[in-house]
Each structure stands twice: as C-alpha cells, then as structure tokens.
C-alpha cells in the first residue's frame, strides 16, 4: 500500500501529496488515498514483516503516507531517531470488567507514549511528512496534549516550533509544553478561537501546522492504534471500541485502520461497534447523535475534560455516520461521572488517566449499566492520555492520613484509616 494522492472526502477531486487540506472545489476535507494492489499480496509474509519491524508505529509504515518510509537508518534499527511513538500496552482489565458486569475488557493505554498521549502517533507522522516536504518550522493549535507532542518533536528533530493553546489550559499541560523550548502562545479564547486564528495564520506563514495544512497525514497516524489493537489481540478484531471524541478524527481513523486491514485480509470479521465518548459540557456529536442529525451544531465548551473541548468538531459528520453504521453510539457524561471514571479505572487497573480517559471509562460504565453490552463481547477501552496532566480532577477525592512517626500513632490512626473512600459512587449501579 503506497500513498498515491490526496482525495476530497466529499467530491473525490484529487490533489498531489502536498501540504493541502481543503478541496478548492467544494471546501471538503482532503484524505490520503493509497494504491489498491492486492493481487500479489501474501498475508503471511506481510504479518511477518510487521512483527519483525521496530517496536513503534514505524512497524506499520506500509500503511502510512510517507514517501521515504520510516525515518532513520534502514532495517530493525530504523526509526529510533526522533521520538518514536506507539507499541503501547494493551492490558486485560478483568477487575474493571467484573465491576461492570462484563467478561472481557481490554485497556489500550496510550498514556505510555513519549509525551504521554496518543498525539505522539499523529505528530510523528505529520512531522516526518513535513520534513519530506521541506518544512523547517512546525506548529499546531492545541487543547494541550498536541502542544506537548509538537514541542517535544520539534526539540527531538531540531525543528522550530510554535504552539498555540487556550490561555486557561491546565498548568501541567502548559509546563509540559514550555519545557521543550517551543514558542508557546496562550490565546485568550477557547480552542475553537485558537483554531480559527491558526487557520488564518496557516495561510500567511510557511509553517507545517500539523493539524491544519498537514492534517491529512497527521490523521493517518491514528490508524496505528487500530493496527496495534488488532495485532495485540492476535490478529483479531474486538467486538466494540470505546473512544473519546473531540474533533472526531481519532474515532473515525481507528475504524479506518480496522477496515484497511480487513480489506487486505490481515484480519477477518465485522467492524467493531464504535462508541464515541464526550463530556456533557462539550457534546456536539453526542447531541446530534441523540437528535438523529447528520451534522453537529457548534457549542461553547464548559467541561473539566479540556482535551476534548472542541465545540466545532470538523469530523463530526463522519463520526456520526460511523457510530450509526457500526451499531455503536455517541454518549456523554457529566464532570462528576468523569472524576468517578478516573477513579474507577485507577482502582481496578492501576492506570491513571487524564480527564479524557475518565470520559471514556464513564461512558463504558454507562453503556454497561444500560445493558447495551453483551457480556460475551470483547471490549477495548481506548485511554488516550496521562492522569498527571490533569491533577485537579482528582484533587480532594481521597484523604491522606498524617501521623507521628511511631508505631503507636499508626495503630491509633489505623482504625479510621482502613476503609478507602468509595470511588465509584457516581457510577454506582453500573453493572452487577
């Protein structure tokens, strides 16, 4: 599979593989198209080649839009340059499943990436393509995780970087961006304001905005999450995936990854049910799903899940279509449920996620409580980011017992210290 051109998702007009993202004929988004030569495909050989590849996303380079293949020297040592992403753990979460009355739940922990979110996947691909196209400066409009990743990739590869964020972002995400020496711009407004500004700037500057003019390449990086899930399940598909939705790009590209591999014969079966997860305070896609609409009405976000706070989701129409045709849904949860979701995941799996993962976990609990998940289903919960980035969400949710450094003090304090605070009050009743 080699990338051949860019294609408009709305009207199929073709464009060369350059830094383009909008169709000039109908304003639709552009997407990478690949050649479709399956005639001589040897599935066994292809699987072996993937398995013999590097322990990062470049093992899937055959399915990514890079002219020169993975960066760095060839062979198994390939692609240890820069900040290789991917090959994150897929862990079997039996205690979480049991709590929710389910049998088989897996957690894809994408916090285990170089800058602790799935964004390293998309940025690796976008920045590699940007270098192929001759750009010397990378940039982005970000809700935080992308900011961390673009700043770090700029540092690793020696590229100048400009990162634009809403000025009220979580302090952890601001600190974990500025430390890399990027030019950090806090914009007085929400993400949608930052995005509008960057879309205007993109026309004026010769920069690679990874999620604007490099967006067709960037978005393809999300497919690697699907490839890893399938490979880690032993070349099998899950029955259902729960995925957070901000712009809708990750949600739709995970499905695209499964579809591409199914079409090539690398895996078999039907597309998993795709369940999108949003916060009540920013739920344009969930609202449109519930109302039966096929486009989203923009909203002004107000939620603790700031990494999902995109009020005007560009891929909303495609996310709605995917949820419906896969037999899934798009649901939303309250800030209280998000906090409880973070605690539930932490207490049952040892994985501490940021607010976006709290959204995803809470939606899983909600679906289980509604009885929508057959207990025999194999469910994958996609955790996209790290809990240390949104510490405010867990502040005040448990107690620390402070004592004098003596055995007597410990034993005297123990009586009222043994019962851990109930984490899942807000999700109580979820499952059996």
């Amino acid at each position, binding site marked *: 599979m080699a990338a051949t051109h860019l294609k408009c998702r709305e009207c199929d007009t073709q464009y060369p593989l350059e830094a383009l993202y909008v169709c000039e004929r109908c304003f639709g988004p552009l997407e990478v198209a690949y050649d479709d030569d399956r005639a001589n495909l040897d599935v066994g050989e292809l699987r072996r080649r993937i398995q013999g590849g590097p322990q990062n996303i470049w093992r899937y380079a055959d399915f990514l839009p890079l002219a020169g293949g993975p960066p760095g020297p060839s062979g198994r040592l390939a692609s240890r340059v820069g900040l290789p992403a991917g090959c994150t753990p897929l862990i079997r979460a039996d205690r979480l499943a049991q709590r929710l009355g389910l049998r088989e739940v897996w957690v894809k922990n994408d916090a285990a990436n170089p800058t602790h979110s799935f964004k390293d996947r998309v940025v690796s691909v976008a920045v590699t393509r940007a270098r192929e196209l001759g750009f010397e400066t990378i940039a982005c409009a970000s809700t935080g995780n992308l900011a961390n990743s673009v700043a770090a990739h700029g540092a690793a590869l020696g590229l100048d970087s400009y990162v634009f964020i809403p000025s009220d972002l979580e302090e952890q995400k601001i600190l974990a961006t500025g430390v890399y020496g990027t030019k950090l711009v806090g914009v007085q407004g929400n993400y949608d304001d930052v995005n509008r500004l960057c879309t205007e700037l993109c026309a004026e500057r010769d920069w690679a905005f990874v999620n604007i003019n490099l967006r067709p390449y960037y978005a393809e990086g999300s497919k690697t999450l699907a490839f890893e899930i399938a490979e880690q399940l032993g070349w099998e598909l899950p029955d259902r995936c729960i995925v957070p939705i901000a712009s809708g790009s990750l949600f739709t590209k995970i499905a695209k990854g499964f579809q591409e591999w199914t079409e090539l014969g690398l895996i078999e079966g039907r597309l998993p049910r795709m369940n999108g997860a949003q916060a009540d305070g920013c739920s344009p896609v969930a609202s449109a799903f519930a109302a039966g609409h096929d486009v989203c009405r*923009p909203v002004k976000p107000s939620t603790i899940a700031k990494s999902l706070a995109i009020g005007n989701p560009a891929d909303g129409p495609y996310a709605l279509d995917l949820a419906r045709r896969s037999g899934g849904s798009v649901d939303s949860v309250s800030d209280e449920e998000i906090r409880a979701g973070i605690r539930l995941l932490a207490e049952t799996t040892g994985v501490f996620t940021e607010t976006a993962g709290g959204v995803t976990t809470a939606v899983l609990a909600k679906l289980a409580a509604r009885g929508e998940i057959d207990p025999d289903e194999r469910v994958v919960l996609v955790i996209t980011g790290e809990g240390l980035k949104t510490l405010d969400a867990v502040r005040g949710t448990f107690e620390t017992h402070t004592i004098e450094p003596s055995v007597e003090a410990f034993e005297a304090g123990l009586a009222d210290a043994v019962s851990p605070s109930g984490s899942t009050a807000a999700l109580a009743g979820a499952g059996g």
Partner: protein
Amino acid sequence: MSVTVKIPTQLRAAAEGASEAQVEGATVQEVLGGLFDRYGELRQRIADDDGSLRRFVNVYLGGEDIRFLDGLQTPVADGAELTILPAVAGG
C-alpha cells in the same frame, strides 16, 4: 453598509486572486449574495443549491461563528469584517 469579506487562500482562484472584498449588505446572507454576484464561481464552491452554506464552511463575524449568532440572517454593521474559513479541527 459596506463590509470587508476575507477570502481564504483556497478560494482566491475563484475570486480573481482577491484576498478580501468590500461588499454591501445588511445581513450575512446579503453580503455573501453580493460576493457571489461579483465572483459567480464562489457560489458553487461553498454554497448548496438552496443557498445554504456547505457543511465544511465556517463563517465568522468579527471572530464569532455566525452559528452562535443568527446564522445567515445575522445583521452586519458598517465596517464589519466577515471571515470565510474551512472547518478543520483536532486538538
């Protein structure tokens, strides 16, 4: 009432290369109609047959998405700035 319309790079070929235009009109719809009268090709590119904007077209009045105002019926003041941009996002 004269309004400045900022035209995105992707549409400039259909607007004789112009990056902005001064157009008369009392509402967003009238302004866009005036723009389309001047550059006929623009209409086919960003508007549907019924006159509504295609779903990937965002229009901002003074930086605010018109869908948070009164959409195409939003009144515009003299000297206002209307910006047409493609929908693109991903945090």
